[in-house]
């Protein structure tokens, strides 16, 4: 069996006296959509920030293995390298688009590194030497292809800040996908979407998995999205992994139900003893 795409080993993240993530280990398998769920403050976004390099974990190892066997230890890479070399892209809980730039420009900024090389690290580009024009056109074509997939091609020349909320969410996913990632990390992609937009998002994420071959790791509170599209679910509560398995197993797991609905303290102890945590 080949190595999983991403595997977290004993990840811990401490902020002063607060242990936000406590010895969490799980795998994200290639070609699957993995959901990371848990109540508010469970440490989901902290795990994300560790994977994408915005935090350096206090302990633990995050290994990402490409299909050709190249292995990256993400906790050792500077944040921008995680996207550039290890090919992990992410979106943010509170959308972080370049609001004053057009939709098309947003997607071109995402192709910065290949275009930078094509422009001879600016030197040749300023002089107008080399094939930058052609490469830029290819980049535009790729951006437009993505805009067609998310249905925003008519708004390519509008500033991203003018788009409605749901479109901004989809644009942020398209922008992340323009970096050609092997793993796409989405932080609450369905937050604030209406039911129809939520369905469109499900279709988009399935096509990212099936058509682009990009594995997806997502944080989500909307259980209709989680149960509908994910192949694998990991549940965190108070920084500890309490469950890990297929959606159907998770749905009926008493610990998960307890974490979400809340139970009496004695009952938690009983349930924990039962599961052996």
């Amino acid at each position, binding site marked *: 069996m080949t190595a999983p795409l991403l595997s977290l080993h004993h990840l811990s993240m401490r902020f002063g006296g607060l242990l936000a993530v406590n010895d969490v280990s799980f795998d994200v398998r290639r070609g699957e959509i993995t959901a990371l769920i848990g109540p508010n403050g469970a440490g989901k976004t902290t795990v994300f920030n560790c994977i994408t390099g915005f935090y350096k974990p206090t302990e633990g190892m995050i290994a990402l293995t490409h299909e050709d066997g190249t292995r990256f230890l993400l906790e050792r890479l500077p944040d*921008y390298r995680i996207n550039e070399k290890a090919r992990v892209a992410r979106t943010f809980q509170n959308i972080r688009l370049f609001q004053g730039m057009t939709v098309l420009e947003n997607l071109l900024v995402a192709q910065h590194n290949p275009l930078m090389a094509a422009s001879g690290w600016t030197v040749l580009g300023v002089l107008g030497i080399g094939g930058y024009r052609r490469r830029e056109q290819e980049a535009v074509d790729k951006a437009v292809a993505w805009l067609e997939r998310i249905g925003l091609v008519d708004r390519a020349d509008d500033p991203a800040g003018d788009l409605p909320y749901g479109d901004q969410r989809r644009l942020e996913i398209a922008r992340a996908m323009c970096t050609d990632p092997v793993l796409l990390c989405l932080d609450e992609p369905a937050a604030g979407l209406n039911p129809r937009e939520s369905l469109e998002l499900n279709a988009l994420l399935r096509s990212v998995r099936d058509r682009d071959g990009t594995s997806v790791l997502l944080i989500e509170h909307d259980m209709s999205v989680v149960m509908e599209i994910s192949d694998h679910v990991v549940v965190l509560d108070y920084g500890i992994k309490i469950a890990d398995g297929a959606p159907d197993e998770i749905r009926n797991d008493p610990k998960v139900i307890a974490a979400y609905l809340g139970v009496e303290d004695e009952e938690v102890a009983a349930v924990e003893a039962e599961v052996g945590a």
Partner: protein
Amino acid sequence: MAARQDASAADRPAFDLAAAVKDAGFAALVMLGLSVPILALRSDQNMSNQLVLAQRWDSVVLACVLVFFGRIAVAWLRRGKAAAPSKPFVLPPVLARTGPPAALAFVVAYPLLMLALNGPLGSIKWIDNFGIQILIYIMLGWGLNIVVGLAGLLDLGYVAFYAVGAYSYALIATQVIPATYPDLGLWAFWICLPISGILAGLWGIILGFPVLRLRGDYLAIVTLAFGEIIRLVLINWVEFSGGYAGISSIPRPSFFGIPFNASDIGFAAVFGLEFSPIYRTIFLFYVILILALLTAAISVRLRRLPVGRAWEALREDEIACRSLGINTTNTKLTAFAIGAMFGGFAGCFFAARQGFISPESFVFLESAQILAIVVLGGMGSLAGVVIAAILLVGGIEILRELDFLKQVFGPDFDATQYRMLIFGLAMVLMMLWKPRGLISTREPSIVHRERKAISGSLVKEGHG
């Protein structure tokens, strides 16, 4: 919300005189409080060199009355349009297409036009004080625009790079070249121009490293300090820079090896013209024009290259940039280095044009003025910088020419003494009416189907 605005525009509320008078009375009271210590009492010396207090209560009354009625006038002008959203100002397409080439044609013809109008001696002032001076500031504004307007890094010490460029040329041309290759003396300017730019760019990187982690106010303070450090070193390291005395008799640029002097090998003699200092001035005008146009051309190109888009993305959201694999360290450093390089070119030209430089030319006020040009013009807009430079630099120069004011205010009146006041007033008016600069829309760097200007309200100013 929109409906309410429409309604307020449709039936303008009647002008509320009582409220306006109350407001104006309050403003006049504030003016009274301010003007008593500033205007009413003035310390003078009498014949026997004693300090006496001169009282000027008439000016206080005048100021308060002016403020009172001015405030009522403002209230009258503003009636009923309090909440009206300002539409982005967009040039009509005809003007946008023909404007820049027409302006360029005018600038190219400008020295000849002045020569025809004012004769060889009368036109020096117009070409030098107006033309060259404004072009230097346009070039500096365009250079700083890369750092402040595009990358969103507030740099209050830009004049330091101007100083590095000027001193590089002055020192190399007066010390290094005569000592090593005296034959190259006539070419000094052309050799030193790239060197000055490269040295200033290097100093840009040297400044860039320590400030990479800083943002906003902290970045502004450190760059301000950097500008002062360079100036203080130039003042105090007397063996190196000549201290306050500065560096004099800096070689002037030659016409590609032909000097501008009255000798037999001079420019006038070679081209069979009568000797006149105006040729050098005209030549300098075209040199700075070409340098400035080069700055503009490179800025425009850079904006369309990945590095330029990365600068603007950095201004918009640095964290998103890092998540997209952009090395923000290098991106900031290139912005600092390229901006500084243009400052260095301009400094080299400045030293060659003046023939004398001293630390006095590189005070903080210069940085503030260049920054004011960029901010007034509209962050990131090249055309805005041009308009702002003409208004600020040309406006102050024109104050010297307003002789008729002497007839109004008496022979001792010197309008240039009021330039800081006018400068400040212009800034306050800008903040009121055009808070995002004269040109407050952003041009997209690439277009799929239709070019649309982006309203300044969406564009971020950068976080430092």
